[in-house]
């Protein structure tokens, strides 16, 4: 019954709230959220082990940006239907850590964005996204939701659809006093800000991963500098900053880039051996499927990580470029990532 009344409420908002101005930020709300340490959780299984829990306590984490699911375009070979669907839904093993706010985060693929260009599809998708977020939050007892974040690598060509999706989502959440935020990639700084209440500037994925000559595609200060140069002094949105402490594998076959592998553990000797040329690269030994890719013997995986000094240097740069109150968010909470950094290094990142 509760869910039905919520549905009706959401529908009413959807129907009646279309005329709201898009830049009416919940200023008080969003200001209250400044200066809080936060972390992204980007795995599909929300399970906090001892090291993660300690991390949350040690660094006074107040918010977890928890990826709930991705929204992707899908065509179904069985039913021959097509549309946007949630994929990679996170399964919840752990409960919400005490005194920590969960910010449901949803990644929107470009394919999905292209598909929902039609206005009706935009509002329909927004409704589905919001409904699913709320259901997942209540089912998994994630506490009061105060913010929802959309993550998308939108560009000029898809900007209009993304902004429409943000507006529709914001309208739907308004009555529940939930604000909406959006990730902002460095290249998006040059474009108008999306119609949301806050932005999180992603200071990672800065390099060209396809280019074999790229030093580190996760974070390279020189790349950041290029993006920040010429950026408007005052961005239209209050920004928080997200720094990487993750690693990934870049997969190559015959020196050609094949894809990203999020797994950062290539120690299974039955499948991989360390490259003789480069200590951070691995050679596939046995054919297997990983994250939807068929890896065959001879393929190379280059494991990239984020250097804490580079992160700090980046933090200095962006806080200078966007002075004012902000939160620092680490991407992302994973014991495998965390153990590569000392407490001090993490504290150093949060101190900016």
């Amino acid at each position, binding site marked *: 019954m509760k869910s039905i009344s919520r549905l009706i409420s959401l529908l009413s908002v959807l129907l009646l709230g279309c005329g709201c101005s898009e830049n009416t930020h919940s200023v008080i709300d969003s200001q209250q959220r400044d200066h809080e340490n936060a972390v992204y959780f980007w795995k599909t299984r929300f399970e906090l082990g001892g090291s993660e829990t300690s991390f949350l306590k040690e660094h006074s984490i107040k918010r977890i940006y928890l990826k709930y699911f991705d929204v992707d375009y899908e065509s179904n*070979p069985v039913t021959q239907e097509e549309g946007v669907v949630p994929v990679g839904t996170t399964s919840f093993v752990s409960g919400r850590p005490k005194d920590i706010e969960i910010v449901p985060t949803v990644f929107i693929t470009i394919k999905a964005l292209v598909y929902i260009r039609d206005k009706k599809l935009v509002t329909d998708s927004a409704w589905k996204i919001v409904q699913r977020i709320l259901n997942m939050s209540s089912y998994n007892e994630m506490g009061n939701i105060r913010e929802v974040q959309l993550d998308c690598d939108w560009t000029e060509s898809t900007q209009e659809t993304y902004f429409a999706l943000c507006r529709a989502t914001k309208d739907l959440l308004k009555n529940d006093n939930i604000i909406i935020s959006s990730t902002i990639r460095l290249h998006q700084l040059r474009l108008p800000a999306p119609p949301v209440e806050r932005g999180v500037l992603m200071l990672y994925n800065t390099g060209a991963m396809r280019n074999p000559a790229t030093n580190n595609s996760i974070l390279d200060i020189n790349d950041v500098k290029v993006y920040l140069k010429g950026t408007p002094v005052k961005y239209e949105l209050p920004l928080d900053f997200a720094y990487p402490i993750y690693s990934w594998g870049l997969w190559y076959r015959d020196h050609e880039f094949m894809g990203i592998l999020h797994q950062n553990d290539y120690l299974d000797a039955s499948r991989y051996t360390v490259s003789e040329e480069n200590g951070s690269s691995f050679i596939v030994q046995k054919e297997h*499927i990983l994250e*939807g890719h068929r890896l065959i013997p001879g393929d190379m995986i280059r494991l990239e990580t984020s250097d804490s000094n580079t992160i700090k240097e980046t933090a200095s740069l962006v806080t200078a470029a966007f002075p004012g109150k902000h939160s620092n968010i680490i991407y992302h909470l994973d014991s495998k990532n965390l153990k590569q950094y000392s407490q001090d290094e993490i504290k150093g990142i949060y101190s900016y």
Partner: protein
Amino acid sequence: MKSRVFIATSILLLTLSVKVFACGPWYYDPQTYLMYRPYSYPSEEWEYNTGAKENCLLWQKQCKTSASTEDICQIVYKTSLEDLKGLLNHSFKARKLSRSNAFARTLWNDREAAELLVLAKECEIVRSDLNSPWYYPASKEERPYGLDQIAAKAGDYKGTRFLNRYALQKIRALFSLREYDECLNYWNEVSASMADDVNKRMAERYVAGAYFRIGETETAKDYYLKLEDIDGLYFCFRDGQTPWEEVLYQYAPDCKELREWMSSRIKYEEHLFYDTYDDYWKEGTVPGEDADKCKELARFCARVASEGKVKDPDFWYYSQAYLMLMTGRPTEASSLLTKASRSEGSREMKDNIRVFKLYLDSVLKPWSQSYENEMVEGLKWLDGMIVDHLDEAKRETIEGGVYKMGINLSYYYWNDMMRKIVLSSIVPKLLKNHRETSAIRFANMADNRLLNLVGKSRVWYQDKDSREWVEEDLSLGQLRTGNLFNEHDYSNALFELIDTLDVIHLERYVASLGKAGSKTDAFLDERGYTDKAFFQEVIGTKHIREMRYKDAVKWLSMLPKGFQTRLNTYKHGYMDLDPFAQSKQNLKDKSEYKLTFARKMADLESAITKEKNASERARKTVQYATGMRNSVSMCWGMSFYRKSVADTDTEYFGPTYFSRKQDAVFSKSEKLFQQAIRNCPDRETAASILYELGNMKTVTECYPETKSAVIVKGECDKLVDYHLERRTHYVESYGNGPYEFERKAATTMR
């Protein structure tokens, strides 16, 4: 019961395969038998699909149970999760289920199987929810969201008995979770250990889908091809522009779906071509847009047939040929069939090609001895096909009387084709070449070959004593000599032909029966209905119809006694009335009805000639004219086998000429009436003749002084010329000629 189900199915098939009028008449031109016959794929069982049945049989084997597949199907596919859990946990409610279902009893004692079914049902329920990928329960009470647990539990199975079944559940769960990599890795681990059964094949569908999702479309394609899942295949390779058939032709040129597609398109056009209302076949081509479609399809067929990518170019040439036929190019169709017969393919298709070729030859080739020899050889082959393909099911249907050849209803392909070729092409050609006797022989074979093969006919009748409906299988002999309606011999193409041809041809045909003729005649006679009496009766009747009573006597005398009881007209009471009465009067003795009548008419002919007394001659002439008139009107069963009612006339070989022949008889009989009255010197006699005819008004007006007029005036309030009125009514109804002869004759006399 089996036969009833079959008959019901057959009726359904018939209604699907032929065109019918909304309210009748139920008649189809023999030309319109549908000839295009690409493939005959086995039909799926109606109860549940073959995969489900195979699965139930596997359950039967794995659980070593004697439970029927129906019981297993009930539990596996239709029982609720609650009931399955009840069987696992031995609940009170489930005990009841186990009493009524043998497989439930098996599960009661087979915990491993029951556990698996519970897991499978849970997986099914959750996956059903997930059919809306956006579904997510708002609370834990709403639905246990446990596909990952299901996958894990299925993966934990360590046994061998249900390895395939658990693997399938795990793969399903992982696929539904969109964990494609895990799904495929698991498949690669487990597939080698899986037995090749229905569960493995079902799992392969998910595997194919998973490969597609991770972008390995080629691998997905291989799986879909192996599984013959064309929808999946098309889905992999569609690009929004390339037509479905092109995608299939490119990636699965030998798939049956491509052939079914082409067949269904051609079948659609074929139905239009032979549609009873529009009769495009008479014009030789389907109309405009459809002709364009046919040409486009023909181009596709030509490409497929010639590019060497398919194993059955014969089918594609055959299809192309048929499209040519429907677009007015039978000659090109014929040469394509030559290619088709020389191309690779199936034996079955070669048979279809030969049928088509036989038909086209019958249409295209001029009549000659060499063509006749060739044609007869072809028909002998076709006859062999009729014999070879006549299975029990078809016999059953044909016996049941559903296959009504009299109206050219389609049912049995090989016989249909023989009828199409013979009745629509060969018989008309023979008639055109003045070979009427041969035409009768061919038509006879076309109508009777299959009946002779089946040899029985089912009848339903109401028992006179018990008043209950009785179903009985009669031999053809019993049917033809019994007292039930004979629905074969007086309403088919043969009968229509002999009923309308000049009687001389029928006499020649009868004369040739039983005599050593050509091999072709012998072949045809062996397959026809050659009871001479049947034809002799028709000949005698035709002579009555044509007022040659002595000839009628000659032929009708040849019949065995009581033959007339075989006639439907007799059975239905059209041989009851006195043919010499002026009004309806039943005969006391109606035995040898036609022969007695013909004899009397022949005697009257002779007596009239010999009679010297003019008044007496007039009386005899009136009696003769009355018999003549009545033989085609009140007593029409004397000279015809059915009344001419436009809606039921087939008029295939010529107009069913009841009216035309009737007119001639009326005309002659009326002349005789007129002549009798005019030549009657005695006014009393003339008046009494008019009185007998019922022309009371004329009697009083023209013969007021006669005794007859006095009687009429004394007894009638209203003076009517009943005979004249009947004639007038006839004219108004049929509009063919004035019949005021009595008045004219009377006026003349006055």
